[in-house]
């Protein structure tokens, strides 16, 4: 899938995260988190796995995490990507 426009998903409420996506040459992931020291690597891993499953190889991904569970991170990244690509949903790829 190809990022063709800017998109946002999620909130800055506790237990959630805000995902901002923009078109970019190459894949760049920026993670800001209240629990960055303890869980920064784990958050990055979940974001990378989610993007990989959606075949996203280019894009600027900015994450503002407020202590979200992995399932929330996956869902917010997925919805931001789908909004930014305007691609038809392939459910077997998403779930």
């Amino acid at each position, binding site marked *: 899938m190809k990022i063709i426009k800017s998109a946002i*998903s999620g909130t800055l*409420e506790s*237990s959630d995260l805000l995902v901002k996506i923009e078109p970019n040459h190459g894949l760049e992931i920026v993670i800001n988190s209240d629990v960055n020291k303890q869980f920064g690597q784990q958050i990055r891993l979940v974001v990378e796995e989610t993007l990989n499953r959606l075949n996203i190889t280019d894009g600027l991904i900015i994450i503002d995490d407020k202590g979200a569970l992995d399932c*929330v991170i*996956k*869902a*917010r990244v997925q*919805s931001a990507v789908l909004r930014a690509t305007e691609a038809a949903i392939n459910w*077997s790829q998403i*779930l």
Partner: protein
Amino acid sequence: MKKLRRSMLFLPGANAAMLSTSFVYKPDSIMFDLEDAVSVKEKDSARLLVAQTLKLGIYQQQGIETVVRINALDTPFGLDDLEAVVRAGIEVVRLPMTHSEDQVHELENHIERIEKEIGRPVGSTKIIAAIESALGVVNAISIAKSSPRMIGVALAAFDYLVDMQTERGDGTELFYARCAVLHAARVAKIDAFDVVYSNINDDEGFLREVKLIKQLGFNGKSLVNPRQIELLHNAYAPTHKEVEQAKQIVAAAEEGERQGLGVVSLNGKMIDGPIITRARTIIELAQISGTRQEY
């Protein structure tokens, strides 16, 4: 024991914090809401949030039944909701605004297709029909009997009362609908759920309504606030006196069986099959919920 469905707690599907933590309240069933609680611009994100939460399995691990209220299938959102939640392993789909059995057949056709696509056992996804119109109430029996997937019918008051050109009052306005939906459930041998009580600060009014619907025979109630769960479960718990009497009935029945007696009596009253079954249910319920605390 049959699955208890006393409390069905609504959770807004777009609220990450509530989805991540609400298993701690231990309702019998949790209902992820993708319909009225989610704005149109957040429908896509909320359905993914619910689906990924389901895949994590935190509710299933706690023994809490997972239900989702999807958007109606004639909206742009209903089918995508269904694709997401069936694939993610939802146990029960709640269909809003059910007026006729045709809507249930349409839903089950879609569910069956998805189940086959992903290799989920056909028939494993169950259905609850929400009845929220005069037409739905009149058709309640055919709706309740429309599918082997159907595990319950739920009365929803807001739209029904608008349709009936009245408003929430002392319960008189819901009397016919409650009785009709409950009879439909009993004809179909499935569960019946009462309406939400939306004034969360009025415990007295809530308990008055719970007493009424329990006496009518409802299995439980849809809830909008976690603090109503304990009140509801306690109201449905048997009293200490009921449990003691049930134990005496079961003991007398077992003694009669040992002696090969066809008919058993206790304190001069005959004990037959339905009374023994009821007594065993009371004992099992007490083992789960304890006995009723009087406040």
